[in-house]
């Protein structure tokens, strides 16, 4: 019933700090960091800005719903006091200025009436919003004019009956998902309805949705804030990485719900590959990986015209349907050179055959290169999925182990750490292959590949130990081995990420594709300080 996605967010559930730990020393004690609550750690990350961070680390803060509300309220109160306007109006102004308080105050001081007008507010002073019964009133929407009809108007004075107003607001909020910019129903009137008036008009259920939508705009309006994409997570993450820096840094952030994602593209953590390469890679995989796989395994190309041919039975004597070229399926050589040895190719090397195979080999090289990386990428993806089951079994294993060996709960936690390490490392490994696919060779790629190999070996051997039956796990030696390997894996991962991120920031990698987004500039200093 669990999806892969929520698996990824569960992997490092609760207090796993492995990947975010700015501390490079990942020796034993880190694995037993279980009493640490995530919040202090994340706050620390912000505070220790001056301290040396790993090259792949970005500073970020997680905001919970109440923080988001508080930040909004603080800004609104501040503007409310400074500009001496109502809170509802302050909120509308702030939204109009995308929560840029400084610009709002500056602009408002300079030319208040234009600012109010542009934001959909009126200068008119009026009391609190109220429903009124006006004799002789006829509603322009429903054309109702009966006596005692309750009506409402915003500061603009366009008056409609309460029923029509309700219908109108319900349509906007429920059907159109609108909140921050609901205008007066009158044609061409841009006065915006404020929260207080709205509360007066609609049902509690709609009010709740309205405020939810308003909160959403606060996060969506600010480039430095993004919602955590994990299902049912209501937190938002704040990070100052600019869009233009994304070619030089992979801003992985970790929500309090423990979901790790890229702040740049909201996908699951894809370090060390930059967002643009990830996008290209995923597109490529979606485009042709399966087809390419099949073609590679099942077809050959006609040595003359290059048409792809599937041999679905019959003898080795092939006649291309397109160009009528006759060749031997086994050696790809001319059929005429086969002389009398029909239907069983036992020729050694004839010239035409070698040439044909060379040409075919060349055309396969690029495909094979892609498949090389794709297979490894897919393998780690697959293994991570298999480890998912293992992870679910881990807890059972831990309970069993406590029973059988008399170990305490805390003493069996090493299994959980190992499982988490496996997940995170595989996630990283997976993306190193996508990254490597786009990497052009230079003297740094070798170091990268060594790092990749080291991590891969470590992960595979940890994976193997981890699968041992419970009886074996009780063995102290194996326990120590697993703990050592776990911390070794984490260490290797950090080394790889740190090195890759540093070179990315310094612009030392060369890629065999162009980035779609313009680079930060020649020095790339924007990415990190």
């Amino acid at each position, binding site marked *: 019933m669990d999806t892969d996605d929520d698996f990824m967010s569960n992997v490092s559930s609760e207090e796993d700090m492995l990947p975010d730990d700015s501390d490079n020393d990942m020796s034993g004690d880190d694995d037993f960091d279980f009493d640490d609550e995530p919040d202090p750690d994340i706050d620390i990350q912000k505070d220790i800005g001056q301290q040396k961070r790993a090259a792949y680390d970005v500073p970020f803060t997680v905001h919970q719903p109440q923080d988001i509300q508080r930040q909004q309220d603080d800004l609104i109160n501040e503007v409310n006091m400074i500009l001496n306007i109502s809170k509802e109006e302050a909120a509308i102004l702030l939204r109009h200025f995308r929560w840029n308080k400084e610009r709002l105050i500056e602009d408002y001081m300079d030319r208040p009436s234009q600012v109010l007008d542009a934001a959909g507010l009126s200068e008119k002073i009026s009391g609190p919003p109220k429903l009124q019964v006006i004799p002789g009133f006829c509603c*322009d*929407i*429903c*054309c*109702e004019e009966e006596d005692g009809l309750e009506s409402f108007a915003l500061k603009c004075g366009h008056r*409609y009956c309460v029923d*029509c107003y309700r*219908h*109108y607001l319900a*349509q906007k909020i429920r*059907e*159109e998902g609108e909140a921050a910019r609901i205008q007066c*129903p*009158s*044609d*061409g*009137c841009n006065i915006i309805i404020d929260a207080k008036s709205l509360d007066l008009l609609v049902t509690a259920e709609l009010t709740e949705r309205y405020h939810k939508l308003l909160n959403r705009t606060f996060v969506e309006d600010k480039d430095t804030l993004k919602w955590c994409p994990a299902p049912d997570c209501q937190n938002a993450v704040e990070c100052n990485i600019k869009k233009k820096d994304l070619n030089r840094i992979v801003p992985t952030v970790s929500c309090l719900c423990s979901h790790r994602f890229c702040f740049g593209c909201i996908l699951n953590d894809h370090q060390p590959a930059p967002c643009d390469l990830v996008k290209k890679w995923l597109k490529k995989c979606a485009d042709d990986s399966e087809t390419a796989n099949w073609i590679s395994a099942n077809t050959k190309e006609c040595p003359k015209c290059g048409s792809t041919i599937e041999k679905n039975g019959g003898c080795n004597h092939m006649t291309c349907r397109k160009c009528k070229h006759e060749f031997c399926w086994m050696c790809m050589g001319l059929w005429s050179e086969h002389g009398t040895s029909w239907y069983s190719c036992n020729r050694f090397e004839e010239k035409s055959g070698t040439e044909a195979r060379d040409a075919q080999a060349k055309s396969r090289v690029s495909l094979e290169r892609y498949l090389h990386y794709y297979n490894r990428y897919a393998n780690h993806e697959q293994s991570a999925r298999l480890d998912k089951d293992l992870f679910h079994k881990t807890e059972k294993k831990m309970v069993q182990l406590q029973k059988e060996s008399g170990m305490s709960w805390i003493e069996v936690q090493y299994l959980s750490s190992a499982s988490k390490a496996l997940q995170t490392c595989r996630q990283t490994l997976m993306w190193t292959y996508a990254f490597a696919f786009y990497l052009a060779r230079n003297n740094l790629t070798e170091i990268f590949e060594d790092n990749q190999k080291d991590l891969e070996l470590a992960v595979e051997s940890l994976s193997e130990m981890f699968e041992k039956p419970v009886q074996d796990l009780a063995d102290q030696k194996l326990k120590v081995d697993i703990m050592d390997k776990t911390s070794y894996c984490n260490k290797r991962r950090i080394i790889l990420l740190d090195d890759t991120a540093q070179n990315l920031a310094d612009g030392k990698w060369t890629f065999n594709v162009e980035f779609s987004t313009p680079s930060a500039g020649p020095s790339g200093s924007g990415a990190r300080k």
Partner: protein
Amino acid sequence: MAGTFATKRLGKELAKIHESLPPGIELVSADNFEEWFLDIRVLDSNPLYLNQIYRLKFKFSAQYPIEPPEVVFVKLADRPIPIHPHIYSNGIICLDLLGQQGWSPVQNVQSICMSLQSMLTGNSKNERPAGDEDFVRGNRLRPKDINFYYHDNDV
């Protein structure tokens, strides 16, 4: 199907329409509160539309007038589709007033007809929208589901 809210309003509109309509607008049929037909013609001597009458079809949802009605020109033997850079040859009209963003519940059938009249009157271009052919061939969406891009509100 029109709900009571829409029915009430449409009933009142219809009563008013029966009373009087501005020049150049005529009610053809309004047999129910779901679909009405009206004829319009321009009042000036714009050569593009001279001596022509155009048939409009209005479709109302239960949310009318909170939601805009669906308005299209229909083609008949004596009712062509007017040529206009915002009117596709299948009769679909690209007008912000008829979209959710530009619509106001204060608008009504009569005001829409008048807007369309002036949209024709003010036009001097003897052309269809860009991509008309592709759109007419490929479009299977209802007019309200098309995301028009109102790039030019002056025409």
